[in-house]
């Protein structure tokens, strides 16, 4: 019974993540401006930094902790560059429906991760890394890049894609090793 409940929650969460880019493409979704896109980029990276910090605190698995540290370092590096570019362009990142949706989803995921221990936590963390990176890749590729007006911001988003694809492969490898 407990397994069914957990699986249902996990499926709902994954479904919500996968539906995010589709929602953003919907005609009812407002078009994102460059300041809003900058906000989504910073928020999406900060969320994975936060997940990584929870993993460093809770996991006893050295491979998983190494992966989490890489996520923290890489996503912090992207945040630094996004903030530096926004400052250079005189753009102030602006909250919007997509960034708020990301934050709401992240709050629920953090609560779920905090409630787990040991191998259950490790599995929940890495499963989430796979689904989260999959969703973020879709969002950047299908929603953010096509709408970005500034060439430098678009270049930064495009240069992030190989990194996210690589993170996804690393997460899938770690997932299969658990």
């Amino acid at each position, binding site marked *: 019974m407990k397994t069914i409940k957990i699986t249902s929650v996990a499926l709902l969460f994954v479904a919500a993540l996968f539906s995010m880019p589709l929602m953003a493409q919907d005609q009812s979704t407002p078009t994102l401006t460059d300041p809003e896109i900058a906000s989504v980029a910073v928020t999406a990276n900060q969320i994975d930094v936060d997940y990584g910090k929870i993993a460093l605190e809770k996991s006893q698995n050295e491979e998983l902790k190494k992966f989490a540290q890489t996520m923290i*370092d890489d996503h912090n590096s992207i945040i630094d560059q996004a903030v530096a570019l926004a400052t250079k362009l005189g753009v102030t990142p602006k909250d919007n429906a997509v960034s708020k949706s990301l934050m709401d989803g992240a709050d629920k995921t953090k609560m779920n991760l905090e409630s787990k221990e040991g191998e259950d936590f490790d599995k929940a963390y890495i499963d989430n890394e796979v689904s989260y990176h999959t969703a973020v890749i879709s969002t950047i590729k299908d929603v953010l890049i096509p709408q970005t007006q500034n060439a430098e911001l678009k270049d930064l988003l495009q*240069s992030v894609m*190989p990194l996210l694809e690589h993170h996804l492969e690393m997460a899938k490898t770690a997932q299969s090793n658990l």
Partner: protein
Amino acid sequence: MKTGNVWKVLSLSVIAFLLLSNLSFVESQKLLASTPLSSFATINPCVWKNTKHTVIIKGMAFDPAELHVHKGDTIVWINKDIVPHNITVFPGDEWTSGTMDLGSSWEKSISKTFDYYCSIHPTMKGKIIVDP
């Protein structure tokens, strides 16, 4: 022309040729002595010089991923990517560049063929091949 005159002309021509040849030889020696060694090396194919190669790290990849070099050549890796990387020999991790921050470079003199990867991002792989 009389036979005697022919001999006179021939003799004078030989003397003139010898004088000019001698002058050219002396001048060429002076020229050679004043030529810098580095210039001599670049125009003399018999003097072998080590080459410096560059590998660019960008888009989560090494470019070129496979590089042919000669023993004694130097390779410079430049991190033009958006996150830190490293150069670590594979397998065994016997040596590593350490973390290469954004925009930084690291170089190594090459003595043998080896595979390498970025231990931070393990699917990033490269190979250096020392040709005979």
